[in-house]
């Protein structure tokens, strides 16, 4: 399985969906890191994520850390309730930049 990427408004939007767990988090990691290594700003769309485990969250954390080191922007958009409850419990909502949508990011800035 691979996750789709769409280039929009200066961002690579990586779309994660379904259950992001130990089975497919390596795919998520590769897609996110490939975009960042191309020096692109990345927004990860989590609107269709039904479940995310700690390995899936780790792929987001790695993207966040790579982006920070390389002065790139990294954020999450349209985070589903299932994903948000995991992020909120771990207080990762304090760490990631989270937007309602790409339009929200474009209107309100980073």
């Amino acid at each position, binding site marked *: 399985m691979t996750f789709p990427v769409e280039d929009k408004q200066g961002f690579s939007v990586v779309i994660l969906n379904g259950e992001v767990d*130990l089975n497919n988090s390596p795919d998520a*990691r590769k897609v996110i890191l*490939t975009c960042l*290594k*191309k*020096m*692109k700003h990345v927004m990860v769309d989590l609107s269709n994520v039904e479940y995310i*485990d*700690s*390995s899936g*969250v*780790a*792929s*987001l*954390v*790695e*993207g*966040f*850390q790579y982006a920070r080191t390389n002065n790139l922007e990294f954020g999450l958009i349209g985070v589903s309730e299932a994903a948000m409850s995991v992020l909120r*419990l*771990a*207080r*990762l909502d*304090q*760490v990631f930049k989270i937007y309602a949508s790409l339009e929200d990011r474009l209107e309100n800035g980073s």
Partner: protein
Amino acid sequence: MPLTGPQIAQINLFGMLDQQVMEETVREDLVRPTDLPAPPKDAIRIVQACSRPGVDSRDLARLVANDPVLTAELLRISNSAYFGLVSQVKSVSRAVTVLGNRALRNLVLCISMRDALRSDAIPGFNIDVYWEDALRRAVSARILAELARLDPEECFTAGLLQDFGLLVLLFLNPDKVEHWDRLSESTPEERRDIEVDLFHSTHDEVGLTLAHSWDLPMDLAYAMGYHHETPPEDTEYQTRQLCRVATCADWMASVYRCADKRSAIQAVRNLLAENFDASAEHSDYLLQQVAESVAEAATAMGLRIGEQATFDQVLREANLRLAEENLSYQELTWRLEQALGERDRYAEELNRELDLAREVQQSLLPDAAVRLPGITGLNLSAKAVSGDFFDYYRVGEHKLAFCLADVSGKGMNAALLMAKTASLFRCLGKGIHDPGKLLAMINREIFETSVRGMFVTMLAGVVDQASGEVTLASAGHLPALHMGCAALIDEYPAKAPPLGISPDSLFPNETFDLQGGCLYLYTDGLLEARMDDGQRLERDGLIRVLKEYASVALSERPRAITDAVVGTDGVLEDDLTLMIIEGKR
């Protein structure tokens, strides 16, 4: 100094260099955009004129005649055996008439791209080897034209141009030419991954950008830009077909170049079956044609190439036919037995290693034989080794330090980070009795060496068993539950993110009185444990179970609770850890 990878990545999709890059480039007197390899302006003018509807062939002939070198090459190639026209052409105007606009456009492009870079333009790199590679793609694409029902010369041009972005990436990063062998020996997909690592960009992205900036016709631009990924949905059928040809040609050429020939041959068979309904035999026949046509095409294009391997030689190297034809049934059986025996030996070795790892890991947990009153814990692993752990030890006459943690992911990598975190807790905790400060210190240590985004959620605290006072800090861990005999008294969710994410995170302490109740710390393996009805326990289910078993003796309670929630099959989806701390004793 040339543009760097990140700078080239900023070339925008409209083909203009990013304004900032352009300014920096000019200011620092580095490579100017005009120094990028590109076809000459005269050639671009001809290409554009050829695409204009109703263009007068006399005007075209005049445009071509302006460039004597181009004219000579055009006539020579038009008359070559490879591109063999029905009749010999001796003048530009005749060439324009016989060839037609599209073929003229393609030939002009091939010639001008070939000459876009001088042979010594990239120090330490022999451009001939690149063109040999490109020529194989061009020949492969031309061979596929019939299957795709496209113009052969158009396919040839697409094949010749499709990886030009790589030449530009090497031109801009001459310090990376030493990686050419690695690039050329990898399959097309592997090569893109290497390009991302080396250049922060890929040849198809750069190719599409350059093609737009040169105003190349859409079909060729798309063949350059979309031979690894599918073109946009609204792309015309013919252009889409040309992209498919370019994808297949890439793999066909790689059969003669990459290290893993067996996989490349199979990939070509799969691609040709999928895209053009070709059989495996037909696929192999076309691959054979590539080797037979390359030398002729090189002569026509005036390119120098080395000695070419035949398809049979490639096959022998891939050992495909040998495996199929020469191995008898007995030999196959013998080899299978050998392989199975080897697999079993590896499995045994791995199991021994895992047993050792498990033993070491168990030694990091508190010794079950030396029980401390008022505190207990249990760790169950989903795999041989666990990413969870708990620990406690005395820090004063009445005080105990304790922690419970969960490393992201499962398996060996999680177990190694667990071992490190457990050691840090034991080592640093002896001197730092403030849980928040201890977590901050461990966090900085873990952050410095964190890999793959791995992180640790952790609860750390100190309990005064004389007064029942608890001081607790949480790094992104699930809420600790303060339970009385019959009800939930309070819960303590995390106020700070997990360890290993940000170096400067702060972990506030919370202090409260256990009032004779118990504090339950647990990992998500407990919440996610599936009950007999298949449902996950979740928070409310856990509180229900904790109430139910509140009266069981402390030392027996973790086992009683986990037995109740794990279900009859005993299969765990995740590591599961539970720790219970009693209030005043």
